[in-house]
């Protein structure tokens, strides 16, 4: 294929990757920013979201869009409840100690993975896309649904931004992020904010998964890569900076697509990985972070 169309295709692919990554990483970033903890089980909430989406769509008959819309509601809800429960039962008792949380969420990762394997099984299962059309460019065809994912993700991120900046809930979150002690003094229920943030973070991961599951299949090991990528995005974007997270997701998603045009695929992965490492080495606070990490 000629260079131009090839680059166009790689950019489209990069944009879809970036859209889903941004949603997923936003969840991790929120938890990171407000609670100052690393949730290693974040990728498993993503996987859980995809698996529940499969359950829901296979139970709802009729047009695929019906099941998909139901999954958009039910899946994040269940994942959110599970996350809130985990926060109450485990993380709170650890007093959000960073290292203890890493271990506990690694434990959670194993528990969720085993639950999915024991109930859902080891197969990768597909979910039908709610809309089914192809855009035929002169050089190649492209899935219309993938283009819609970019739009849907943008809308949801806008919604998150509006909630954070224009609602009381958002204000409470920002206040807690800024200084939990002072927030408590102003009668903000910090405990409940933490539980809520942890749940919302997981729900964003689940939403990203519901969007991706008609493109990729639900599989019990699918949480691994999004976790790594989300980590990268959150760090590169700068700790706790939501805007940075979104920007970093776009940069990483796009560069992952475009570097692969110029190098052999595995070499491209090596270079992209080293690039991330070097960005952090020379900008330890991330590209957009104000605070040192």
């Amino acid at each position, binding site marked *: 294929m000629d260079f131009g169309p090839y680059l166009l295709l790689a950019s489209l692919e990069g944009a879809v990757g970036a859209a889903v990554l941004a949603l997923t990483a936003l969840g991790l970033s929120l938890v990171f920013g407000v609670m100052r903890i*690393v949730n290693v089980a974040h990728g498993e909430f993503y996987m859980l979201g995809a698996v529940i989406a499969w359950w829901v769509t296979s139970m709802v008959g009729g047009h695929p869009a019906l099941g998909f819309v139901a999954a958009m509601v039910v899946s994040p809800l269940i994942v959110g409840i599970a996350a809130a429960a985990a926060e109450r039962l*485990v993380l709170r*008792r*650890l007093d959000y*100690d960073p*290292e*203890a949380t*890493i*271990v*506990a969420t*690694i*434990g*959670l*990762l*194993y*528990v*969720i*993975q*085993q*639950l999915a*394997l*024991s109930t859902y099984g080891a197969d990768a299962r597909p979910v039908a896309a709610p809309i089914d059309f192809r855009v035929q460019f002169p050089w190649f065809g492209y899935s219309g649904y993938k283009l819609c994912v970019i739009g849907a993700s943008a809308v949801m991120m806008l919604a998150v931004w509006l909630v954070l900046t224009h609602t009381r809930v958002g204000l409470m979150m920002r206040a807690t992020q800024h200084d939990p002690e002072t927030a408590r003094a102003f009668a903000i229920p910090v405990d409940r904010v933490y539980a809520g943030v942890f749940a919302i973070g997981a729900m964003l991961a689940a939403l990203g998964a519901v969007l991706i599951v008609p493109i990729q299949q639900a599989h019990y090991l699918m949480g691994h890569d999004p976790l*790594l990528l989300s*980590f*990268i995005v959150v*760090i590169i974007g700068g*700790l706790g900076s939501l805007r940075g997270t979104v920007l970093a997701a776009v940069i990483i998603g796009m560069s992952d697509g475009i570097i692969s045009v110029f190098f052999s695929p*595995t*070499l491209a*992965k*090596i270079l992209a*990985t*080293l690039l*991330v*490492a*070097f960005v*952090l*080495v*020379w900008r*330890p*606070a*991330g590209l957009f972070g104000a605070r040192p*990490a």
Partner: protein
Amino acid sequence: MSRAVGLHIAVLAGLALAQFTLPEYHHGNLARIMVLAAFASAYNITFGYAGMLSLGHAMFFGAGLYAAGLAAEFGGIAAPGGLVLGVIAGALMAAVVGVLALRTTGVSFMIVTLMFAQAAFLTVLYFGEWTRGDEGFVIASDMRRVLGLDLADPATRYWAAFAVFGAVMLGSLAVARSSFGRVLAAIRENEERTRMLGYDVFRAKLMALAVSGAMAGAAGAAYALLFGYVGATFASIQYSILPLLWVLTGGAATVLGPFLGTLLMFYLIDVSSSFTTAHMMIVGFALIGLILFFPKGILGTLRERVVPWLP
């Protein structure tokens, strides 16, 4: 001889005696556990004593594994040379990574080490022509000989694993009791203050990383030579998380913790997998339970409550 040194000598003596008393299956397991515990002890130097949370130690283990494996496969270098090469490779890799990664701290350090390790893992796959990628390769049995003894022989294997583990454990004990170890602990507790007291923090951390890399390299090389297999799995992220788990289980910043943690986690999986297929669930709950009720690991909690002199 202080009681701390006495305790560690007693543990080593116990392990040496176990060679003659254990049934075949557990005898073999213990040899493997000692090699893996050497890896965990290496991790403990940086994580436990210096407080640096690395998620990239698989690359140091892998460096030793591949140094020994490739030297045997293509260079015809047999076991003792392979072990030396493994130590050098692990230390060198840690030094190079350290010079770059130590510009960062905290979570950024964790991610940078993770990224370097991921790049190292992909490099192994990229050079599949020599490494055979994920499938890996088997080390020829005539390369697995030390002083005319066959490392595949259970007794020889046990002694070799014992020697590697003993050296690493005594090395850890020396670090823990040295002034270098106290500087590391000071950095862990308060890096800024340590710097203001006039210590070269960067140099101390780099030293810690290099020592840790050398130990991990030794463990990797020993694993390759004792068990005869070299593969990319051992350089994957899973093998960066495992030493973290072992150390946390046994107790970070305790000399015996890594061994205890490795031993317990090994048997937890081994025993649970024979009566349920859901062994990941058991491991998961064990981790959550440990961190809820023994947050400093088993020996860390013991040290806090019963034996304050434990190094």
